[in-house]
Structure formats: C-alpha cells, structure tokens
C-alpha cells in the first residue's frame, strides 16, 4: 500500500540530506492527510449523532438538575447541588433504588445462568439447530408492552391465572401487586422471559467461536462434558460474558416499562405503597406527576453514576472470577509439570 502512495525515489534523498528538503508535492500531502484523517471521518457520523442525542441531553440534564425547574413553567432559579442533596436524603429515592437493585438481582442472576445453560445446550450437535436457536429469540421479538399486559393479567391478585391455580390446590393466593417481594419476583419474571433467549444467543455466538479441536483433544485426555464446560468453554467466552453482564446491568438498572405497566391503574406509579417503584419510575413520577423537573434530572444523573459504578464493579468481579480460574489452572499445570519432572529425575 505504501509503495503505491510514496514514489521510492523521493524517500531516500530526503532522509540523507535534511538540509535541502525537497518540496513535498501537494498530491502526496493530500494523500497523507487522507490516510490520517479519513478514518476519523468514517466514524464521525456516529459521534456527531451521539453528541446530538447522547451527550447534549446528558449535559442539558445536568444543567436542569442544578436548578429549581418546574416541568411546565420552566426554570425557577439556580440552586446548585441542592436537588442532589434533597434526593440523597429522600426515603422514596432509596426505596426506588432498593427496588431496582432487588429486581435487577432477581432478574440478572437467574437470567444469565439460564442463558449460559441454554447456550451450552444449543452449542451441542443437535437436530434442527436453527429452529431451536430462533425459538429462544421469540420472546425478545414480542413487544414489552404486550409481554407486560399478558403477565400482569396472569399475576392479577383476584382473577389472575396463577392465583386461580394456587387456589385450585387450596393454597393461599399471593399478593403479586401489593406486596414487595412477590411483586419483585413477578416483574423479574417478565424481564427474564424477554431477555434470557437474547443473551443465550449472544453467548452461543461466542461459544461457536471456540476452536472445536481443543474440545476434541480435551475429550481424548478424558475431560468430561461438565469439566470441558467449566474449564474451557467458560474461560474462552470471558469477554462476551463481561459484555453480557454489563449490558444486563445497564438494562436492569434502567427498568421502566415492566413496573410501569404491571399495574397501570394504580394511583402511585410502582404500586400503592411504592412496592416496586424503580428508580426510573420514580424519576418519571417526579417529572410528570409532581412536575419537579430539577429533582428528576438530579435523579437521572445519580442513576447514571450508579450504573457506571455497578458496571465497573461487575466488570472487575467478572474479570477476577475468570482470571482466578485461569490462574489456578496455571498453577495446577505448573505443579503437575514439576511433579512430572521430579518423577522423571528420580
């Protein structure tokens, strides 16, 4: 590539006699500029778009959060970080954060475990591969509003399918919509139903990229399916695992549609006593029911920071888990090698 761009006769003399530098032709300089600058231009559309619809709102939200700001009547004076202080001492903010984390844990943990298992099963040499792979994606295709409508009917306290079934077996009905833990389980179920297949497919793609011959040689060495899964598959898909965990964290902490539509007729969004009012729902409530745009923006920023924190934490933990695995196996290998050498010597 370089050969076509730079005529060879110009190169050497220029380097040997720096005193009388020959004039670089315009065409050459243009080419060099082209080489250096064009990649940035290629990726520019994304960054311009990101600046417009991502960075600008982020900055604007921050400005709003520093003001007393009514949604309808607009700004009402600079208050500095007072909105943040008010929110950090507001029990409803912490309640929403507790609900969010609770629903997040109830959804993300089982979801990722099941997704890995499904991916591992789909990774096997089974009949009708494409059919099964497509099938796990179906829940993801269904719009969340439809999912929520169906599930909120099923979880209805008086007329819902699940409580009817429980009562059929003479069990006590569960208060899915008015008690904290059951409502979290119900919402987590909706999230899991929708996202498990999606994550399974991403993990499957990563598993497909693991070279088959190392499995073969491991099998020849006597490693069973479970051993191969934990010692080879999991460490090999580590980067994808991290990606899936981070995206699940971001999505899980931003949960809104499911709790919003779970019991849409309740007077307070997120349950009569805010049993499942997640942080985004709280933010929405602040902005649109209580018209406090300033505080809502402060909550948005706090949530942003919390998500970054959670993301970093998850990244570190998931990296550590995978690398201790690798480290311990390395140590094991070293020990076995040492033993083998000793045996050979003695």
């Amino acid at each position, binding site marked *: 590539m370089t050969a076509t761009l730079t005529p060879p006769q110009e190169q050497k003399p220029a380097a040997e006699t720096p005193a009388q530098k020959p004039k670089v032709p315009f065409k050459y300089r243009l080419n060099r500029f082209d080489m250096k600058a064009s990649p940035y231009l*290629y990726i*520019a559309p994304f960054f311009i778009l990101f600046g417009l619809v991502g960075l600008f709102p982020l900055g604007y939200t921050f400005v709003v959060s520093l003001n007393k700001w009514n*949604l*309808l009547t607009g700004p009402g004076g600079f208050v500095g970080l007072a909105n943040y202080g008010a929110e950090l001492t507001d*029990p409803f903010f912490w309640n929403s954060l507790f609900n969010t984390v609770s629903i997040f844990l109830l959804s993300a943990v089982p979801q990722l475990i099941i997704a890995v298992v499904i991916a591992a099963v789909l990774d096997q040499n089974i009949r009708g591969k494409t059919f099964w792979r497509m099938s796990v994606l179906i829940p993801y295709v269904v719009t969340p509003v439809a999912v929520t409508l169906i599930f909120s009917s099923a979880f209805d306290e008086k*007329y819902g399918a699940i409580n009817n079934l429980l009562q059929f077996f003479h069990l006590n009905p569960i208060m899915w919509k008015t008690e904290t833990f059951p409502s979290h389980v119900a919402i987590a179920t909706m999230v899991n139903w929708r996202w498990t297949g999606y994550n399974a497919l991403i993990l499957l793609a990563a598993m497909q990229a693991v070279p088959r011959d190392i499995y073969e040689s491991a099998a020849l060495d006597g490693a069973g399916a479970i051993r191969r899964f934990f010692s080879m598959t999991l460490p090999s898909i580590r980067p994808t695992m991290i990606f899936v965990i981070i995206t699940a964290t971001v999505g899980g902490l931003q949960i809104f549609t499911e709790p919003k539509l779970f019991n849409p007729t309740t*007077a307070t969004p997120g349950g009569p006593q805010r049993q499942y009012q997640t942080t985004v729902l709280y933010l929405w409530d602040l902005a649109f029911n*209580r018209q406090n745009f300033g505080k809502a923006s402060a909550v948005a920023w706090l949530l942003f920071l919390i998500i970054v924190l959670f993301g970093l934490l998850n990244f570190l933990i998931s990296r550590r888990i995978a690398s201790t695995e690798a480290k311990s196996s390395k140590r094991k290998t070293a020990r076995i090698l040492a033993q083998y050498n000793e045996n050979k010597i003695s």
Partner: protein
Amino acid sequence: MKYSRRTKGAVALAGVAAFALLATGCSSGGSTASSTGSSTDPITLTVTTFGTMGYDDLYKQYEQLHPNITINATNIDTGDNAKTDWQTKEAAGAGLPDVQAVEEGWLSAVMQVSDQFNDLSQYGANDIKDRWVSWKLAQATDAKGRIIGYGSDIGPEGLCYNSKDFAAAGLPTDRDQVAALFGGDNATWDDYFKVGAQYKAATGKAFYDQSGFIWNAMVNQQAEGYYKKDGSLNVDGNATLQGLWNKLATATASGLSANQTAWDWGKGKAFTDGTFSTFVCPGWMLGVVKGQVTSAGGDATTGWDFANVFPGGAANWGGSFLTVPTQSKHPQEAADLAAFLTNAKSQAAAFGVAGTFPSVTAAQTDPAVTGTNDLSTFFNNAPIGTILGERAKGVVAQFKGPDDSVIQSQVFGPAIQEIDSGKADGPTSWNDAITLLNQLVVNK
C-alpha cells in the same frame, strides 16, 4: 491511485453525511407559521381526546360541513395518560394538536401555563359564552380573564346499583324506591353505609368496589376540597375531611369494600359476578360501566340500574374542556371546531354515545339527552339524562390547587390501599396520609 481516489469519494460522502445530520438536527425546529384566519385551503386539524368522549360521528359531520378540513383525531385511553402526553409536549414546546381536550383534574396544571393556550375570546368565544352553565365557563377562564377552553361535559354524580344483587339481598329494586332507601334528597353517607351493612349481612358480599371513588366523591362535594379558595392547603386539621375519612375507614373495615383494582376490575368481571352492588356514577362513568360489563361478557340483563340519589348531596366529578394550544397553526379553524364539538346539538349527541352530561344548558333539556338512547337501554331504561339533570342541581365548581391530583393519588392513594387491604385503621391511615402530604406537597 485508483485506491486513493475512491477514498477521497468516501471522505466526501462521510463529510456530507455528517453535515446532513447536523443540518437536519438543527432545522427541525424552525418551521414556517401559516396565516391565521379562516381559509378555504385544505387543512388538517389534529384533535387529542381521552376516555370516551363520543366525538367520532361529530368529526365526520364536521368534515362534511367543511370540505376543506380533514380531522386527524387521537384518543388516549385514560385522562392520566392524556395528561402525561400533554405535559411532555407542552414542556418540549412542540407536538401539541390543534384541539387539545383537558380534564378538570389537571386544569390547575394547565392554568400554570395558560398563556400557552389561545384566548378563545379572540376567536369568537364572546358570542357563545352564554351557552354554558356559569361555573363551567368560570373554570376555563384564567386569572387574566382569558377564556382558554370550551366546556364539554360535566360530572354530576348519581348512584349505579345492581338490581339483581339488591333483589338477592331483599332490598328494593325499583329505582325510585332505591333512591328513597338511601334517603332521597337528604341522603347521607351514614345512610349509604347503613344500607351497605344490611346488604353485607344478607349476602356476605361487599357493597362498593373500592374506597377510592367514595373518598373522591366525599372530597368533591365539599365547598372546599384539598385547597381553600385562597389557594392554601386544607387537609391537615380539617375536621370535616377527617370525620368522613374515619367513617369510610370503619365501613371498609366491616367488609363493605371489595378492594378491587380501580379502572381494571378484573377486566370488568367484578361488574358481572356480583363482587359489589353499588358504584358512584358521574355521567361519563355510565359509558365506562357499560364498557366494563360488555367486555366481561355481560349486557343489559346483568342488572345495572341508575338511581336519582347521591349520599352527602350534589357532587361533581370531572368534566372536560376543549382548548386550542398556541402551538396550533390554525387557531381560528381549531376554535371553530371546538365550538362545534361543544354546541348543544353536539353535546346531546355525545351524551347518547358516551354518557357525557352536557355543560351547555340548552343541551341539558334536549330530547336526545332526556329521552332514551343506547346507554339508557343498557341501564334498565333509566331516564339517565333526566336523572343527571336533577343531580347537576346544586353542583358548584370546587377550587383545585396545583397539587390536587398529587394529593388525590399519592397522598390518599396509599392510605386508601391501607384501609382497603385491612393494613391500617382510619386514624392510622389518616396520619400516614398527613406524613405523605408533608413529604410530597408541603416540603417539596
């Protein structure tokens, strides 16, 4: 060289794309305003309504009368969702329709930004302002005397009851006898709860669907509700409200409430399976009851009837206005359409479809309102228009403060759930409500 020429082309393309993005991003806000005043050019008017307003046929009529106008109507399922929709577009400064329906419950929020609505007296409001009952017009007039909305319906409340359930409990079923049973013109909440206890003793079933609507009616029928007329809060230490609250809590604790999810009612099943037998009914609610019963597979034989009585005296719940936001590019045409939709004939027609009781005096006595229609047939041929006209007597508009809907839903909502689910008694739940009031409204 071929390679680099192609690269240059791509650079140019990327640059153009980037600038195109910037350009489109910037230009979307600045659109040219068209002329005001009636024109014969073909124009499209957008209308946003909510719930059941019964305008579909009227739109068609209007389009036939005005061949140059196309109406693009959006109906949002509930008033709350419509409020969110309006607030979002109002805050964004774009996207509002030419005619925006506004509910009484969020009128106080609307009044905060009344300058964002056209003063309809510049578009002919003064010629027609005698149409409405005087308090309806007063509600739509802002502090500066600008008329920002044309009243559509009002919400005088009567009592819906299920005659079959009443028969099963040995109570009278004839609607006049039922009215007398609850105390006729002097009906009180004590009478209501007393009949409820009788009903409960006879059938073992609940009397009303949930406490929220009862509380709403109790508050609405006071001369001053959550706010005093001077705009100050009127909840903490309000002996009248607290007394009513304790009455409601006691009745609920004795099993008169079915603890239903309001606006859902098990997808209407609770209306057909005898879960409860009475229901507070402003005019527009009649359409809702019919819709719920029908969606659960019931019909006129399910037994719902409408009695000319309301505990505690005259009460008004809800009612709407049609406004023309300043964002409208055709304010004159939009105001004309709003005037058409709220004239006596239109209101009478809408009543037949949705039970929305007219706020226009001429329409209240229109045969289409007082006579029979689909809705009255559904309610065992009850003269619903005549009854609602009776129920409208003595109704006055209550002053609604800026946080009225927050107090209703977020301060008393949790307290109502507490008493309905048996988690707390009257005094405890009242105190919980006051705590929330301080947190959400007083020290916001």
